[in-house]
């Protein structure tokens, strides 16, 4: 009998929607032109790229010429942060960010710090949310960039981006003319309403593969008039903001996925929220010593991050995987770094809880049966691992002693 496979790792990546595959296929075979070519094949590709640009722009309320196509969310973050840093370094070398940014933003900021930039990393308290007062208090005359993500990829918490956006506008009016504001919306897009006008951001990062389009396509919303230094250079593509032959099929897929995501947003949100809530209720009822991470209201609808006390995430991940359930963990072991998830640490959990955290992220194709299957498998897997855990043995012995003493 084939193993039932339940994919609950949609924050890592999503399968490509059949409709998106259909949309992109012709641009691999018959309509394969290079969008820079003047002839028919080239114009056909150019028209498709332009259409995709409108579709992606429309998903986030931008103008088409404010969308720069790139190879993914990581490149969008690199272009936004390094590009603005290099364009602004004569005005100041201070950047404000948060403690729970995606590793790409973290890595870029760390690299700038090594080059002498000052980085302020805002705390997120125990609910995983940045406070606008902290942002306000951190702005300095030499601050040239604020970069705070729209929604976090591990715990799903939604940050006060619109508030930061209006703060930035006020700061600019007060004379801090070179202050720019970037937000990483890679996890948010397709899972909540995203609108660059109401957010008031100057730049916003997107990645196709979180939206049921292929990996290897992304975009940066770059507000008209915002200057940055291109990072990949040597060609006229993307109005000199990103050199290199456009990935036409990937861009077409991204456009189609963005359009469908816009059309189906409400439906998708309702669907994944219902699954997620059913799942969390089931976990709370069936498993002891669990901690739900991140503010439970202000978070993405598809994501649940749970710490299972006494055990380490990787063992649980592999045990679930053996039963066909795919999840992820911020645990140090599986990410290949030594530090347990900085995000879970940032919300004040101890090392043990940080190491025992698992992210379950639902998608449009998951079903109630999927949830129920996981609710059957997960408690057993947790129990099995706890049976091995010296921490659990000690804790139960201690509890036994306590109840005896009572």
């Amino acid at each position, binding site marked *: 009998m084939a193993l039932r496979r339940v994919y609950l790792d949609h924050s890592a990546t999503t399968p490509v929607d059949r409709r998106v595959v259909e949309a992109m296929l012709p641009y691999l075979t018959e309509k394969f032109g290079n969008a820079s070519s003047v002839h028919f094949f080239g114009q056909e590709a150019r028209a498709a790229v332009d259409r995709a640009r409108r579709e992606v722009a429309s998903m986030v309320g931008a103008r088409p010429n404010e969308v720069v196509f790139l190879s993914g969310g990581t490149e969008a973050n690199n272009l936004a942060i390094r590009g603005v840093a290099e364009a602004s370094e004569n005005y100041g070398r201070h950047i404000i960010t948060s403690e729970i940014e995606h590793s790409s933003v973290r890595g870029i900021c760390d690299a700038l710090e090594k080059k002498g930039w000052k980085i302020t990393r805002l705390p997120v308290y125990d609910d995983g949310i940045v406070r606008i007062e902290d942002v306000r208090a951190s702005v300095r005359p030499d601050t040239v960039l604020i970069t705070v993500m729209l929604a976090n990829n591990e715990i799903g918490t939604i940050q006060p981006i619109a508030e930061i956006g209006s703060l930035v506008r006020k700061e600019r009016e007060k004379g801090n003319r070179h202050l720019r504001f970037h937000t990483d919306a890679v996890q948010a897009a397709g899972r909540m309403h995203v609108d660059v006008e109401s957010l008031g951001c100057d730049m916003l990062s997107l990645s196709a593969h979180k939206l049921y389009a292929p990996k290897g396509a992304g975009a940066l919303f770059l507000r008209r008039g915002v200057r940055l230094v291109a990072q990949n250079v040597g060609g006229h593509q993307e109005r000199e903001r990103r050199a290199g032959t456009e990935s036409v099929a990937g861009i077409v897929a991204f456009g189609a996925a963005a359009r469908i995501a816009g059309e189906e947003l409400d439906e998708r949100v309702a669907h994944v929220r219902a699954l997620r809530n059913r799942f969390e209720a089931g976990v709370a009822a069936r498993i002891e010593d669990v901690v739900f991470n991140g503010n439970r209201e202000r978070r993405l609808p598809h994501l649940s991050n749970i710490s299972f006390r006494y055990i380490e995430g990787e*063992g649980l991940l*592999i045990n679930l995987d053996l039963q066909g359930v795919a999840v992820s963990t911020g645990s140090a*072991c599986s990410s290949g770094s030594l530090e347990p998830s900085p995000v879970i640490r940032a919300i004040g959990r101890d090392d043990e809880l940080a190491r025992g955290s698992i992210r379950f992220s639902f998608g449009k194709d998951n079903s109630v049966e999927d949830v129920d299957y996981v609710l059957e498998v997960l408690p057993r897997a947790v129990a099995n691992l706890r*049976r*091995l*855990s010296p*921490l659990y043995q000690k804790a139960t012995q201690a509890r036994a002693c306590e109840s005896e003493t009572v």
Partner: protein
Amino acid sequence: MPYSSIFKDHLANPRNVGELADASAVAEETNPVCGDRLRLSLRLRDGRIEAARFLAYGCAPTLACGSALAEMIEGMKIEEALRLTRQDIARALDGLPARKQHAAALAIETLQAAIKAEFRGQNSE
């Protein structure tokens, strides 16, 4: 970081889990870098490891190495057990990713600490 199927089987069906009520040698070692722990309890008799049980906390290789070790040493001569190396553990798991060798090292350390503890006529705890 692809793990072998034997490795995964150790995780799904760990062997020799628990603690021996009548252990003659016990050790619990911690990897100082990442905090992984392995606890081993052994019943040693007539120069042999008559029984071995483990408990482990930490990333998957630590659990798998604990299970592989406990299974492997049960019934083994003590002197033989003392000759076991990290590579033996890794081999029993069909290999370990380079960055995960520390888990096998922890297993060997714990084994040696336990045997030493009994030779000194005392338990490590």
